[in-house]
């Protein structure tokens, strides 16, 4: 399997980025929700937020890498008989996910650095504070962080349901493409014409 995408399938780099980030995003949401209700004497009271912040910063690096990779790669075409509106909605949803991720990470950063403290990433390196001048910064950023995180997780759920719908109802290879399992992947290397995807209707 090659690293780069082509017209019909994702390369392993895009697939790896997707499946590395997916559990991290869902995990961060769950961790963020869980850690807020920890009691002061819980052994995780200090550790959970540290892990949340550290993974968040690492996820930002992955997101930047992913968008860069997307920029220098073609995106595989949608399944041939997908209605145009669906392709557009899917594209919009993907872009909104990227945008929400950035906004959530930025607001999270603004909470933790509101007093000038840096964010320690697993003790490996630290992300310094910059903006500290927003009035009641940690509260404002906190509200934004929460609302956007819920928006994202709802969008992620729709995204996952849509993928499952493609697989189980439409019987197309939309989901298989992101798993690197689409049928035509053996033959359709670099030059694969778009028409080869027609075979997948057999799935």
């Amino acid at each position, binding site marked *: 399997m090659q690293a780069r995408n082509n017209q019909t399938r994702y390369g392993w780099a895009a697939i790896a980025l997707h499946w590395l980030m997916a559990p991290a995003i869902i995990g961060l949401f769950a961790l963020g929700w869980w850690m807020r209700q920890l*009691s002061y*004497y819980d052994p995780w009271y200090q550790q959970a937020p540290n892990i949340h912040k550290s993974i968040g910063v690492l996820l930002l690096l992955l997101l930047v890498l992913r968008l860069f990779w997307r920029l220098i790669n073609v995106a595989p075409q949608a399944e041939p008989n997908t209605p145009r509106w669906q392709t557009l909605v899917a594209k919009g949803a993907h872009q909104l996910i990227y945008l929400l991720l950035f906004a959530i990470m930025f607001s999270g950063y603004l909470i933790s650095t509101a007093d000038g403290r840096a964010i320690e990433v697993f003790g490996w390196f630290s992300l310094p504070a910059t903006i500290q001048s927003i009035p009641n910064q*940690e*509260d404002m950023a*906190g509200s934004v962080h929460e609302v956007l995180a819920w928006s994202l997780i709802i969008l992620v759920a729709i995204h996952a349901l849509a993928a499952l719908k493609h697989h189980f109802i439409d019987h197309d290879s939309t989901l298989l493409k992101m798993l690197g399992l689409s049928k035509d992947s053996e033959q359709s290397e670099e030059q694969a014409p778009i028409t080869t995807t027609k075979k997948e209707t057999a799935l």
Partner: protein
Amino acid sequence: MKKLTALLFAALLGTTAQAAEYKIDTKGAHAFVQFRIKHLGYSWLYGRFDDFDGSFFYDDKAPEKSSVNVNIDVTSLNSNHAERDKHLRGTDFLNTEKFPSATFKSTSFEPLADGKALLKGELTLHGITKPITIDVTNIGGGKDPWGGYRQGFSGTTEFELKDFGIDYNLGPASQKVEMILDIEGIRI
């Protein structure tokens, strides 16, 4: 004429002994509303409310007539750690979205010896009003170098967090919070 001179003289000197209303000098930040609470029972944690205003009436001839009113912007809580401040403003503690201000209105002032006094009043915090007693010391008072007249006090009090409906468990050593109040007023 003699009488008039005497009156004028008294007016000039009389600045040391007058019943007057004072505005708490928050503009020049010569007033502090601070609190401290034990952390795990191992040390004291200090915080303060940066925004508040108020005034007091003081007559050193009749100190028992003194009274104080203070309004505190609870959202201005500052314990030198943004994440902690956010937690303290949240629903686990002060719920400042619902209860953005706290007030203190005095009900009595009982002078004791050596410039000390007991100041009683109603504290409204977290939407709950309870009587509290503040141990007050008159630190000093007199003319300032810029044409004003000032009077300053220091006060301490303590109360249980749960008395004001705050029941987040910080541990057995951290049930009580102490308030350390230092105010300087400029005569209006």
